[in-house]
């Protein structure tokens, strides 16, 4: 059975949904970052696949940039997380509600 573009797109969608579920379910900041990475990388798969199947390179370029940006995001996110952990000793989202209303 040949693998078509549809397979890739379904894979990407499933991964994206998994990422979304992770974003909604996880209470651990680190897990939350993982989930957002899954979101972005799901998109990467789709971009690379589409790019291959329609013979246009801009999709792959998009994917490259997403990778770079995802890395920067992780860097910033982990930086914030470390500071937060140093200040409070926790990375639980439920502890993070000093502002409300």
């Amino acid at each position, binding site marked *: 059975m040949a693998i078509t573009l549809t397979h890739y797109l379904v894979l990407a969608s499933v991964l994206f949904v998994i*990422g979304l579920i992770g974003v909604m379910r996880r209470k651990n900041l680190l897990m939350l970052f993982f989930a*957002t990475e899954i979101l972005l990388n799901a998109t990467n798969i789709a971009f690379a696949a589409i790019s291959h199947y*329609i013979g246009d390179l801009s999709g792959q370029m*998009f994917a490259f940039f997403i990778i770079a*940006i995802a890395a920067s995001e992780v860097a910033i996110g982990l930086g914030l997380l470390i500071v*937060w952990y140093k200040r409070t000793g926790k990375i639980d989202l439920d502890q993070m509600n000093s*502002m409300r209303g």
Partner: protein
Amino acid sequence: MLEPIHVALGSLNIATLAPMLIAIVGALSILIIDLAKGGLHKSLYVMIALLFLLLDLGALVDFGGVFLKNGTILGFFDVMLMDGIAILSQIIIVVGSMLFIPLALTSKRFHEYDYPEYFALFMFMIAGFQFMVATDNLIMIFIGLETASLALYTLIALHNRSKSFEAAVKYFTMGALAAGFYAFGSMILYAISGSVEINQIATIMAEDHYRNIGYVLLSMAFMIAAFGFKLSMVPFHTWTPDVYEGSSAALAGYMSIVPKIAAFVVAMRLFEFLVHSGVAWLQVILYIGVVVTMTASNIWALVQSDVKRMLAYSSISHAGFVMAAILIGTTQSNTGLFLYWALFSFTNLGAFTMLWVNRQKNLIAGQSSDHPYEKFSGMVKTMPMAAVMMGLFMLSLAGIPPFGLFWGKMYLIGSAVSSGYTVLALIMALNSAIAGYYYLKLIVFMFMKEPIVGYDQYYFMNASLSLKTIIGIAAVGTIFAVFAVNPLLKVITLFVYNSGY
């Protein structure tokens, strides 16, 4: 064997990159100066930043002249797109930044301004926003958006208080989710059209007679979610009050203006061709979004006990108000968008700077947030001039003539009426009437109540000459907007109309 590509430098039109490059070079030079000799006073960095922004502005004005003569300028393999709205929005971005950067020159010491990185990041952020608006390439928009956002998260966190970190983490996490939405939305657009340039996507879809309407709408759902986050439309607005409360007033004011105009421009590029093609779904969704955003945030603003949070909800409401322009989608309404935002910048600059000068280092006993209404009680007695200024900005925000925002509101409502959106116009007018109530609440506190002992010592604690100057500029801009409205409108219309919006 393929022939090497020869790229003639002239065809690149590298000049289109000039404004952003100026900002980036400014950022780098701040970093390099710091490396060469550390421990310099923050005013030096402020001056450097202002200098580069001035150059940036000069380049933009120059582009404006070229645009009016020759029309849209493309550059760098057609990735850069300098059309009227790009130039206009960049001018608003740069001028807004120039007005907000001097707010670093406070009389109290604040942690973040001791780092030259603060100013470098600020400049990177400006470059990011400029990239974002000066292109219709989805990749470039993404890069610009993320460059700016990542810098912004860091700037918020640099304020070094527990709430700031909390705000930064919240903003960051939601921003990452929004980035995911944006990427997925672009992916769908790319899948159905094979292009990442908005105008090409529009052409291909039109040729196709929107055969894939389902996928188009799905991608628009993702895009609305992504930009709804940036523009803080309900229900993607939840970050706004918390982030505003957590960050310093100066940065909160900045966030209420500059990132939003950038997002508005992209939203205009993305949504308007669909609105014009009569995609009813998008019109309905935007209609609901606009109305709900305006109304709900107004109601929430009513019950706030902190002025900064109130202003946060109020800026959500203002953004909803302006979003109506994109829904209407005529040249008149788009002109109104820029006019409104230009006037709003001055007024909000003033309002947030007033909060900033009253910033205290430590909360007194029983104080739950930085700027409760009680803090402004009887301000007219202790600082009459300051109270009058703050009152002025509130009146302008409430849309009372002849102050700045009244004209913006009037023009936008007028454009809604002349495009047949009568009910929308009515809702907009009603909402500005409701909004008057909570702005008035602050005025009541300032003018009608007795000062509360303990708070009064903090009035103008943080003021310095440059902050007062900024307030003065904001006040002048708000009061004399009457005389500026007409010339502004002429210029804006010229730019917007010639960009085809």
